[in-house]
């Protein structure tokens, strides 16, 4: 598989009101790879992630400079259709947040919103997405049951299935396993690793071990700056920047 740049971030600066949350960040995110973002609390990981599907639009008073290109198109240009963008760039949140609907309706939510009404086609999409999210076997007999009755780990995989159902190309995950027990976490991590064959994945985590385990590339943020970005292997065995080294060896702060 050739290494293609899927997302290109150039000199990104981001403000909340007058507070600079990101400072001149440039990053190339590769297609079909897992890119992990690590760093201490408040360093701007989530902000960066949410810039990529313009979820930050929801917060009033934010300002952005620089460029974010996905497949070469500037997603912050005036002509960008945000709704289309978000169909292409799925997102999974820190706390699993299934809708209080049946498992089926949760996964079918996106496709339905985009106008798919045909029952057979929906069923197909739901089944496929649940399978991709490695949760089909656990729920296939209770698709009509409320999603709220699933365990935390299952809920999170359901949310991944829901994101997959709109057939995105990129999946953003903001600490998808931080609220889970180790066993569910292991399952999610395994799943993420499988998903990269079809999707480009960007994952925020404050668990360095997790970044080490799942990702191909890792970026280390500090106070809104991208300090180091490279091969995960390299970051964790021989980082170039001493601040990265300090952080991953636990000598920081």
């Amino acid at each position, binding site marked *: 598989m050739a290494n293609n740049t899927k997302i290109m971030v150039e000199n990104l600066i981001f403000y909340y009101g007058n507070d600079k949350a990101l400072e001149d960040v440039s990053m190339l995110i590769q297609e079909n790879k897992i890119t992990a973002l690590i760093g201490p609390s408040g360093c701007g990981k989530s902000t960066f992630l949410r810039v990529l599907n313009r979820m930050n639009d929801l917060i009033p008073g934010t300002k952005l400079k620089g460029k974010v290109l996905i497949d070469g198109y500037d997603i912050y240009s005036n002509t960008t259709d945000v709704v289309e963008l978000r169909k292409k760039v799925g997102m999974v949140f820190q706390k699993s947040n299934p*809708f209080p609907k049946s498992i089926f309706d949760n996964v079918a939510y996106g496709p339905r919103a985009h106008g798919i009404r045909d029952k057979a086609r929906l069923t197909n999409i739901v089944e496929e997405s649940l399978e991709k999210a490695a949760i089909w076997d656990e729920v296939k007999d209770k698709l009509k049951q409320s999603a709220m009755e699933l365990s935390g780990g299952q809920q999170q995989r359901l949310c991944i299935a829901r994101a997959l159902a709109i057939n995105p190309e990129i999946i953003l995950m903001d600490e998808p396993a931080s609220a889970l027990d180790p066993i569910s976490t292991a399952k999610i991590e395994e799943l993420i690793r499988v998903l990269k064959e079809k999707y480009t994945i960007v994952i925020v985590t404050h668990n360095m071990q997790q970044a080490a385990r799942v990702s191909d590339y890792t970026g280390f943020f500090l106070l809104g700056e991208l300090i180091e970005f490279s091969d995960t292997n390299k970051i964790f065995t021989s980082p170039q920047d001493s601040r990265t080294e300090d952080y991953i060896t636990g000598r920081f702060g």
Partner: protein
Amino acid sequence: MISRKGKDLLIQNLFLFFASISILVLFLIMAFLFKEGLPIIEVVSPLRFLFGKSWYPTYEPPEFGILPLIMGSVAVTLGAITIAIPLGVATAIYLSEVANLRVKELLKPVIELLAGVPSVVYGFFGLVVVAPWIQDLFDLPTGLTALTASIMLGIMASPTVISISEDALSSVPISYREASLALGTTKWHTAISVTVPAALSGICTACILGMARAIEETMTVLMVAGGAAIIPTTLLQPVRPMTANIIAEMGEAVHGSEHFHALFAIAVVLFFITLALNLLADYISHRFKETGSATL
């Protein structure tokens, strides 16, 4: 000095004492209502009481059919909720889903304040402003009609509906909205297919409580509903809802008389209607609780 354990026990029993008093008092109310209301059964069968078409308590022999009163209440209440529910729910959705934070923070407390306006003030307003206006508009002999009462009650009940619905909508986790938007949907789609369904039980509760507010309202209907104890055929007729009837006649009813008991019996009926509505609201809010919706 008493031991710490003893002190704890003493305080606990003190609380138990006060709690018992207030609960006792509250149950006394029911006891009294039934004690004074039930004797009417000796005069008129419960069915005749409920479904009798004439209310002539002072005739000889008196007639104690409260159907006209019930129908009066029903007419006024239905009228009220057709105004209060659509307007109230729409406003609640506007406040929680569309309005920006500043507008919401301004309007929400204002509306809650208005929920506290005394009913006699609404009655007064209905009497001096709305009734003449209705009279002119429809060219009626009197402006004191079921419609006038409905309008006033509708206005009165809408703050209740708005306030409780908006609470329900706001307490739908923000994460649902984010999830929906992140799937590439519009705000409106998100509102009707995620937020409102999630808050549905809270909204239902709001509507039921709004309706209860209309049914139990006394002074306003006493002042603007017209007071005729007939079964209404249009909203433009005067009516005499149950609450208005009780208060209007209690002054004249001789203590211990059949009339007196009949009025208490109406109170018992009202009590059961409110009970039913409250149970319904309770049921709805419990029923959907685990789906993360907001309730009272």
